[in-house]
């Protein structure tokens, strides 16, 4: 009968699809590790390549997605048989701290000369994001962050959504805890006509296209657009660009501990840091080549443990100001 044939046909398609999926990852040998990361493709691809070149017996399988998607994926993993990664390279310490809290990662870090301000017992920061200001054609670049709430920028300032971008949350945390700014800074921005867009990249696009006068965004994104010829200026306003470090950590349940450790050791090493700097991200190790950074550019650091504690309250306060 017709229907039975259909069933057989569907069965065949399903088996075929399953086979297609499996064939690629059936390797399952001990020297293959799975990396979950939010680091952009421009950086992660060459870093993996050089690691694999130096460690011929280890192959790295990559799941790369923006922080939000990565979080959703891991939440799904955890509730269906456990985390399927051997290591995680996150883009901010808050997200990583949440994974430590859930006992998914941590408990080991490699020997490294990276500064202790980027390290805890559970993870080590290997790359940095700097929240800087970007301004458009015919608009004076801001000297300090508070300038953005002034009349020179009442044509619109783009603010990345801290509910979506961890870097934006880091900036929110810094400003909220800085006595001169506080969440009142965001209220003043909003009053001045500032709008919230999803990601720091959207900020760069919006400012370059002239939709906004200026915006708060990450340095690599802004410099990459400028390098391509976009009519924007990048500034590191006072008291400083907000630095957010991206930590890497070992999964608690990994079955390939040694291979995973060797990858972490590599990215925290001088060689790995050099490669990260060459691939469009800022390394955490001092004195490495990196994307543009003005000499003596001021840099400030959020208080991560404190921010981790009152993140929800802070986000709620922010959302009252910007809606969404």
């Amino acid at each position: 009968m017709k229907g039975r044939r259909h069933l057989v046909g569907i069965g065949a398609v399903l088996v075929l699809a399953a086979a297609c999926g499996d064939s690629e990852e059936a390797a399952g040998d001990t020297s293959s590790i799975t990396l979950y990361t939010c680091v952009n493709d421009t950086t992660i691809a060459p870093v993996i390549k050089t690691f694999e070149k130096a460690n011929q017996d280890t192959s790295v399988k990559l799941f790369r997605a923006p922080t939000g998607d990565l979080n959703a994926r891991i939440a799904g993993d955890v509730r269906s048989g456990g985390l399927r990664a051997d290591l995680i390279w996150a883009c901010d310490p808050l997200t990583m701290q949440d994974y430590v809290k859930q006992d998914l990662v941590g408990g080991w870090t490699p020997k490294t000369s990276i500064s202790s301000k980027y390290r805890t017992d559970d993870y080590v920061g290997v790359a940095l994001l700097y929240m800087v200001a970007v301004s458009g054609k015919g608009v004076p670049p801001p000297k300090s962050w508070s300038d953005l709430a002034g009349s020179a920028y009442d044509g619109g300032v783009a603010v990345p959504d801290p509910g979506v971008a961890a870097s934006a949350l880091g900036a929110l945390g810094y400003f909220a805890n800085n006595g001169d700014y506080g969440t009142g800074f965001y209220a003043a921005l909003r009053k001045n006509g500032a709008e919230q867009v999803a990601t720091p990249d959207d900020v760069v696009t919006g400012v370059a296209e002239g939709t906004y006068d200026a915006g708060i965004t990450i340095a690599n994104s802004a410099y990459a657009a400028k390098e391509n010829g976009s009519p924007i200026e990048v500034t590191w306003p006072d008291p400083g660009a907000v630095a957010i470090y991206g930590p890497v950590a070992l999964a608690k349940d990994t079955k390939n501990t040694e291979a995973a450790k060797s990858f972490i050791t590599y990215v925290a090493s001088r060689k790995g840091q050099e490669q990260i700097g060459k691939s469009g991200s800022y390394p955490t190790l001092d004195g490495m080549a990196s994307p543009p950074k003005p000499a003596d550019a001021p840099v400030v650091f959020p208080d991560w443990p404190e921010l981790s504690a009152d993140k929800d309250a802070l986000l709620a306060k922010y959302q009252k100001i910007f809606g969404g």
Partner: protein
Amino acid sequence: MGSSATGPPRLREPSLPAALLVGLTAVLVVLLPLAKMVRTAYTEGSGGFGAVLTRPGLGEAVGNSLLLSLAVTALAVPIGAALALTLRRPDLPGRTLLRVGVLLPVVVPDFVLAYSWLRAYGRAGFTDDLFGVGWEGISGPVGVTAVVAVNAVPVAYIVAAVGLAARAEPALERAARAAGAGALTVVRTVTLPLMRPALATAAMLVFVLTLGTFAIPLVLGSPAGFATVTTRIYANLARSSDPAAFVEAILLALLLVVVAVAVVAPADLLLGSRLRVTRTSTTDPGPTRSGSNRSGWWVTAAVTGYLLMAVVVPLVALMTTALTTAVGLPPVPENWTLRHFDAVLTVRNSEALSRSLMLAVAAASLLLLLGGCVAALERSRFGRATGTLVTLTFVLPGSTLAVGLLLTYGQWLGDTLLIILLAYLAKLWAFAHRPVSGALDRLPPDEFAAARVSGASVLDAIRTVVLRPLAPALLAAWLVCFLTALHEVTMSSLLYGPGNETLAVVVLNSAELGQVGQTAALSVLLTLMLLVPAGLCWWGIRRLEVRRTSGSSFEVIDVR
């Protein structure tokens, strides 16, 4: 489980296997994932529904979602119906092109449509640069409504056109005309009442589609602080390294499902029986010219104007972005480059694309079978219930549905393409089912039986009597599913596995670091690429139609 007493025994024979297939798949892709989500919310949500439901801003988001859905339905369904009515006039100048044009928004991924509208009409956009006319309201509720409506019009159009082809009575219309009624009076008194069930189906589909829409509110709504339930779900899901946020995302998604059930189930119950009318086979030449050619030109001008505003200008804006060296430079020849196209056309990307193509073809083909089965079973209560059931996963935002599938099958199917396929089946089943359902009663009920009695095998009878007249609706449904699956980003970006990258991954990779030019180039390539199979399908439908009008007893099929 076969045909109930209300109908003639036309599809009785294949109905048991069909019911088994439909039942099994519904359990796998709809019920189990939903059950798993409910369980997760129940076991982990110690604070419970109460705490989530009283969260500040939730009421506003729910209100926004409902208002948006109502507004979009009120806009898209009349426009879709009007297009279906006008485009069936055989003497309409440029009809062929217009019919393809109406479907263009389906070809363009929704987030691309939103972005291209922003480029076309927003501050410092296309019209602002050229004529100094920028529309500030594009970012905000009005802009969101407009773009979601444009995105939904093709769906309304397809359902309305299918219904029109199935139900319109050209003889009645001519009789009314002969009796002295004006063209508008005929539409109002004869055609529209006949289309009512199809319009109700279209309204329901558009309403639910809008409830679950996410990319457009994110791009155009968020800057103005306009939140919907889907953007809240996204924000929660994005913070789901915190278990509380994850559970809240699931609860909100379930809330959407409840709202969808509240709307769809009564509608299905009420309309279920009314949707099915029988019609006898007639020899009817179909609709004829309904006015002077001058009015035809006016209609063509109006439809062309709509298409220009809604689709063409935004796509041109997108094209200039793809061709301009860097974001923000004026789109003049000295700034033109093919660099972005170059950067997008890599081996890795084409592998991802071929995976997505394979997935989309498999999904669309399976969906057609599944949708057809549900439609065929709709005379029975089981069939109608399934019809409602598959709408539940249709309303879930892609990200939540993907998480539901991860929760259910991640352990066994994680990182395979199969889990993405299941996600597509769950998300698009209603898309395949509703148009087919709307077209099914064009089948003269006795012909299947007649064919069988005359000695045709079941297969032959289905091929010659069932598939032929349904072909346009089936092809339209296949095409919509194929296109939607191909450029789907949210689900596959969560579900893909290492070494199994799909097109979504490519899109996301290029969207980061502000590579707007590359994203635009990718969208332009995708649009062009999709126009080819779409064109082929359209050509196929046309051939079928020509063959039928020249040799069979069916009326002109008016569906593209």
